[in-house]
């Protein structure tokens, strides 16, 4: 199930909320949340839910053994076993076919591909399960002795299928004690509505524009069409993905959880390094703490470690060569910034950094959007003007959709934090707080209405994470 569906909003969610708030006991609330989470997952993956439960079981028992044999070699053995088993399910379902076809092409052998669909959310929940067992080994979190609580952590529906990648250490205390207040619920509702609106309106309309410009034949693509198309894609993926994170964080708040932030207005970054501190934060911090630092970080073989991390980051987004290229592309820019450009950017006016980052990120999305090398090549040929600057049909499409671009651009800027900061200075003034509170109430009602209409009326409601 996805959040942006009528069945989720008007059947699943009311039932779940009613069942959850009937009891004040945390144990019953945990069980309610677990049952609903399993239903949520089974709705989309009626068979692969067993895989998720099995993955959790592996890490649960491994955690127990790691704790039991703490300080001995066996502890490390069980950790290794858990990591290998957990990653092998990811490897089998996500990467097996990719490596099979690649090997077949390279060595003229014939390894049969599995041809199975990727279980939804597998890239997210396997990483979450890993943070548990690794952190138990590192003695950073207490071992979990009840299976259902660990399963609740792994399967919790707000963050199950599209992030943020919540670490066990982020929520392990909240699994035992958490408070649900009216204040938190109201803030959660606003956050959820922001996300819903981003996904159902901004992302979907930007997606339509992108699809009409660069989704078809690239041989007639004009320069204008190419750049507007990839800009629209940049908006689509940002509002889709960050909207999902907003909905997750908002729902979490309603149920009393505090999830980590995942996006901080990435398109206003002043450098690529800055961009990656703002884009999909929980993924880059995961790679930092569970791959980069264990390999030695910047103390030994720094460049090699960086290369590995960015190859993996690319591959995480999909088992295909274009994602490897995408990861390498960012590796190159991060290295350039670290060795040379970074200091220079700091001295130049901010606008230079903004424009540079936007351009690099925009070009980066080309490697993300097109999955084959010939398409990427055709796009760049068009983007640098080989098929002419403009074309009448593409111009018509752009004019038709022209309103979405400025709206997206404004919404991608940190206007809310700016207002909030302004307001914090006026905290004592009652009238401002009334305005702020009523504004949010009106916004939430409006957003729910518009999003529902968009869901009812729209036949175009794609889910981008089938590859993750």
């Amino acid at each position, binding site marked *: 199930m996805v959040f942006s569906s009528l069945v989720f909003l008007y059947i699943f969610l009311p039932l779940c*909320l009613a069942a959850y708030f009937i009891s004040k006991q945390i144990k019953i609330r945990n069980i309610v949340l677990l049952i609903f989470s399993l239903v949520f997952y089974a709705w989309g993956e*009626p068979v692969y839910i067993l895989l998720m439960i099995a993955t959790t079981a592996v890490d649960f028992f491994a955690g127990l053994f790691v704790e039991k044999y703490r300080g001995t070699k066996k502890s490390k053995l069980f950790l290794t076993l858990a990591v290998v088993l957990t990653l092998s399910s990811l490897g089998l379902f996500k990467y097996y076919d990719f490596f099979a076809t690649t090997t077949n092409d390279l060595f003229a052998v014939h390894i049969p591909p599995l041809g199975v669909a990727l279980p939804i959310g597998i890239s997210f929940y396997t990483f979450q399960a890993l943070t548990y067992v690794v952190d138990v080994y590192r003695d950073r979190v207490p071992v979990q002795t009840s299976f259902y609580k660990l399963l609740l952590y792994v399967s919790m529906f707000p963050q199950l299928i599209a992030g943020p990648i919540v670490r066990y250490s982020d929520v392990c205390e909240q699994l035992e004690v958490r408070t649900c207040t009216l204040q938190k619920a109201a803030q959660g509702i606003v956050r959820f509505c922001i996300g819903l609106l981003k996904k159902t309106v901004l992302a979907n309309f930007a997606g339509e524009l992108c699809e009409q410009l660069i989704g078809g034949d690239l041989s007639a693509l004009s320069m204008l069409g190419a750049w507007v198309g990839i800009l629209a894609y940049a908006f689509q993926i940002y509002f889709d993905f960050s909207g999902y994170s907003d909905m997750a964080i908002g729902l979490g708040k309603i149920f009393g959880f505090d999830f980590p932030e995942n996006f901080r207005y990435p398109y206003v970054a002043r450098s690529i390094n800055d961009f990656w501190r703002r884009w999909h*934060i929980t993924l880059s911090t995961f790679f930092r703490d569970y791959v980069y630092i264990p390999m030695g970080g910047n103390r030994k073989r720094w460049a090699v470690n960086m290369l590995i991390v960015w190859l993996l980051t690319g591959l995480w987004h999909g088992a295909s060569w274009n994602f490897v290229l995408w990861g390498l592309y960012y590796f190159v820019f991060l290295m350039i910034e670290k060795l040379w450009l970074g200091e220079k950017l700091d001295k130049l006016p901010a606008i230079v950094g903004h424009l540079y980052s936007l351009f690099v990120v925009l070009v980066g999305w080309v490697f993300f959007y097109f999955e084959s090398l010939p398409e990427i090549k055709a796009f760049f040929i068009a983007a640098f003007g080989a098929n002419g600057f403009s074309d009448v049909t593409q111009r018509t499409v752009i004019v038709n959709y022209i309103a979405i671009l400025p709206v997206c651009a404004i919404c991608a800027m940190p206007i809310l934090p700016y207002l909030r900061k302004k307001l914090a200075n006026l905290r004592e003034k009652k009238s401002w707080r009334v305005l702020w509170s009523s504004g949010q109430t009106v916004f939430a*009602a409006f957003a729910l209405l518009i999003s529902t209409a968009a869901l009812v009326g729209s036949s175009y409601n794609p889910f981008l994470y089938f590859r993750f």
Partner: protein
Amino acid sequence: MVQFAKKIKKPEVLVQSNSGTPAQSAQPAILKPFAALMALLFFGTLFVLFFISIFDTDKTVSETENRNLATMPALTASSLFDGSFMTDFETYYADTFPFRDELMQLHNTMSDFFSGTRTSDDIVLVERGNENDFAGQDITYDDEE
């Protein structure tokens, strides 16, 4: 294994919270009456539409789109395990959603603003005399005397 699990004492470890920043820490509080109103509106809308959608299932035809609406899919073991029940149910639910025509209207207005074109592309061609004719009623055609 449960016994074994119980034997392990939970060590008291200071939990290090280390990923990202906590969600919106400096958020000014929403004044209580507004928070209550918001919760009432949001949860109220979910529940009211839930109840209407569950009990009001008479509609089978969309007059504005001139087509039969999707029907409730049959629940069988195979349709459940291959996921087709869920997909069909979502289509059925969207088709029979309360205030569908009004919400469609709102969506079209919004579509006009953002895309300049109407996206109601659900035109269904039917053959004459087909049982899927308008509203399932018999229609006499002018040239059919």
